[in-house]
């Protein structure tokens, strides 16, 4: 049940006929409306800042997935393309003569071009091979440019980075982008445009061949395509959209620093994309939304958020290589058969028990951590809005109990879930 690619061969999926394929508009319209009304629901400036951050991460993750998911190229240094695009934009913002004649909403184009330019230079030698060589070159180049950021102060501004003021651009329809909300809509528009372009790109001959080269570069060569150039163009396109993300970062935060370039940032975008799911276009979008929430919200709740994230990531790679999107799309066959409902109860049983187990385990982890690292005499801890003494027996019994019972129940009910799953994925009356 882990591999979303194995479909029952006896039942051809009713996919949309490729010949009549136009951009399926519904999800895009919903997304546009959602983007439009979100600021009316979450009005606080900080909420808008977080949504901006989310949108930027989405664009970046989608750009990254053009490489990882669609092109099969694993990059460990993709942050540099976004970063360099952003830095270039910051220099444009600081160039008064030019910037005062440039409407701010057009700035991301320049970011894209600079990201693309750098990608063309690096891609000219890094895309000759896929796989390990590509990954290693990307790591090497990433480290180099990140290290340069503190050496080449003229461009990268050293450790404190460079900053500017977005409001000095040519007013656009009377808007000077003084307020976060104005920036939000600017970013939202660019999010829609970039996402649509990237989606459409995957439907072009080059986009299709990127998939082909990913799956089987040798075969692609015998179809008349140079695997190297297909990779190169994917890489350049990805660099362009990464540059746009960088430019939007520059607009939103008005500062760029070394952290926009370093390997941590590159690692994060890999994590985001993979958690979301590389197999589907919307995977990275999910990943970016979930990750940003985890980073900003969970990190307020617990110091150990990185630890939990690490566990989730490793578990995802091991058991759900399709990521979140893969998990969701696994249910499509059952839905087509109209039997999704049959999964409800078994899910509730197993996942409910599993969730109890996870909560118990998390409480246990927090308590262990607290006992080990809290300052002497500090025995109080607050977990799940309850404050208690970590040196008492009861909390430990409760937490261990919840963990054991939760995972035990999950294990006990798992066969039922598997049976229900098989049932839901089998057409009624099919002989098996």
């Amino acid at each position: 049940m882990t591999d979303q690619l194995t479909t029952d061969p006896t039942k051809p999926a009713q996919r949309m006929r490729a010949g009549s394929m136009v951009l399926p508009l519904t999800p895009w319209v919903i997304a546009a409306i959602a983007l439009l009304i979100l600021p009316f629901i979450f009005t606080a400036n900080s909420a808008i800042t977080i949504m901006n951050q989310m949108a930027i991460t989405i664009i970046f993750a989608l750009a990254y997935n053009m490489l990882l998911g669609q092109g099969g190229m694993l990059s460990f240094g993709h942050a540099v393309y976004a970063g360099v695009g952003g830095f270039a934009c910051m220099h444009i913002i600081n160039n008064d003569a030019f910037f005062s004649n440039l409407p701010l909403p057009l700035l991301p184009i320049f970011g894209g071009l600079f990201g693309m330019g750098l990608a063309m230079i690096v891609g000219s030698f890094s895309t000759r091979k896929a796989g390990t060589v590509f990954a290693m070159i990307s790591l090497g180049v990433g480290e180099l440019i990140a290290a340069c950021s503190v050496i080449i102060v003229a461009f990268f501004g050293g450790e404190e980075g460079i900053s500017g003021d977005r409001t000095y651009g040519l007013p656009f329809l009377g808007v000077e982008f003084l307020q976060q909300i104005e920036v939000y809509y600017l970013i939202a528009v660019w999010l829609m445009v970039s996402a649509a372009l990237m989606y459409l790109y995957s439907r072009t001959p080059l986009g299709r061949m990127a998939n082909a080269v990913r799956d089987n570069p040798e075969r692609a060569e015998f179809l008349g395509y140079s695997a190297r150039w297909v990779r190169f163009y994917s890489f350049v396109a990805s660099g362009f959209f990464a540059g746009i993300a960088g430019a939007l970062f520059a607009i939103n935060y008005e500062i760029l620093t070394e952290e926009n370039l370093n390997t941590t940032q590159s690692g994060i975008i890999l994590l985001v994309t993979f958690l979301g799911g590389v197999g589907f276009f919307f995977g990275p979008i999910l990943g970016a939304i979930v990750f940003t929430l985890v980073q900003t919200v969970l990190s307020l709740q617990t110091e150990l958020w990185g630890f939990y994230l690490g566990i989730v990531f490793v578990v995802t790679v091991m058991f759900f290589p399709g990521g979140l999107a893969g998990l969701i799309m696994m249910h499509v066959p059952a839905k087509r058969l109209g039997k999704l409902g049959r999964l409800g109860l078994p899910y509730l049983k197993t996942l409910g028990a599993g969730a109890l187990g996870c909560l118990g385990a998390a409480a246990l982890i927090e308590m262990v951590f607290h006992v080990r690292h809290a300052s002497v005499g500090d025995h109080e801890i607050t977990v799940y809005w309850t404050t208690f003494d970590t040196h008492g027996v009861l909390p430990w019994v409760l937490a261990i109990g919840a963990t054991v019972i939760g995972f035990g129940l999950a294990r006990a009910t798992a066969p039922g879930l598997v049976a229900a799953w098989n049932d839901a994925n089998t057409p009624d009356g099919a002989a098996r």
Partner: protein
Amino acid sequence: MLKSITLGVATALTLSVSALAASADTIKIAFIDPLSGPFAGTGTNGLHQYEFAAEELVNKQGGVLDGDMFEIVAFDNKISPKESLIQLQVAIDQGIRYIAQGNSSGVANALTEAIDKHNRRNPDDKVLFLNYSAVDPALTNDKCNFWHFRFDANADIKMDALTDVIAEDDGIKKVYIIGQDYSFGKAVAAAAVRFIGEKRPDIEIVGNELHPIGKVKDFTPYSRKIVASEADAIITGNWGADMLGLGKSVLENGYDGPIFTYYAAADGITAAFGETGEGSLRLVAEGQINPPANDRAAAYYEAFKAKYPDGNISQARITNVIEMLARAIDEAGSATDVVKVAYALEDMEHESLWGGSIKMRAIDHQLIQDVHIHAHTDDGITFDYDNSGYGIKVENTVTMAAMDSETSCKMRRP
């Protein structure tokens, strides 16, 4: 610690609901510093010092105005400028008017600019930036603004004091300057060259170099150069693992002169240096810990240790921040009109808890205070660091250091 983070910060996205102005009876101060990641130790210790100072020095004294209490609200910026800006936004949305930050001049640069822009664009909810630790001289020079107040002596002032001591030591003929390759490291090096040139032109600077920040695995090659240069003294701005690595490496490889530095105390470093650092490490800092300047300071430190047995008062200036802010709010008669509070802070003179008088210079918002040269030792230590038996003891003092120093700050006042 968990408690303190969760306390003030409702989940970020539901803030729209909770984004009410600060209630009348608490004055919130946002503490934006690393509470997770490699610098969490420093950040957490700073947070404890803030919480303790607010409690002891303000709340237990009856608060400010009509009994309003101080409340420290912690925000984890993971020492990232980007995260800091997000947390700043969250803090402002919660109606917080006072932002305290200290770790990393990079973050401080980002915050001061963001706050300047915010106050220009949102005249209705202006905020003040209480910088208690970021010492990049630019913050009170080219990059100064009306909303930023620095309570630590900046890198130049400290170097001025440090070189006063070096100038008096006739045994020092050769000096080696080494630092991290970024703004602060460069500022230290430039100041050292300048002041030594002014005060002791006969001292030869036998080395002046930068190394990558946080990337050096093994300082041995640097130590070899330093030993080979026969330097009598080392000046460095290194901090954290770079300080520990450099210091231990030079001492192990045959160097036995003094190491003049800014940050080589507390947060595990004092313990890690232990006996090795005895007789070599010289720290420049404000705030006299050993011997205690007065009974009040000793009592305060003891109370702090009683509450946080593993903690250190490593940033004495935090009490100045709290006391001066409290006085300024009282003088201004309002905690919400930050312009008034800022004017009240300007030129404020104050008796520091740790001894000596201090003054917030109006022209650049740099606090002028006594700067001490401390020795790392286990002799005569009343309050040790890291419970290691070792601590820092005042050896020399420069009163009201750099009182008349020049500044390139052109302050625009509202």
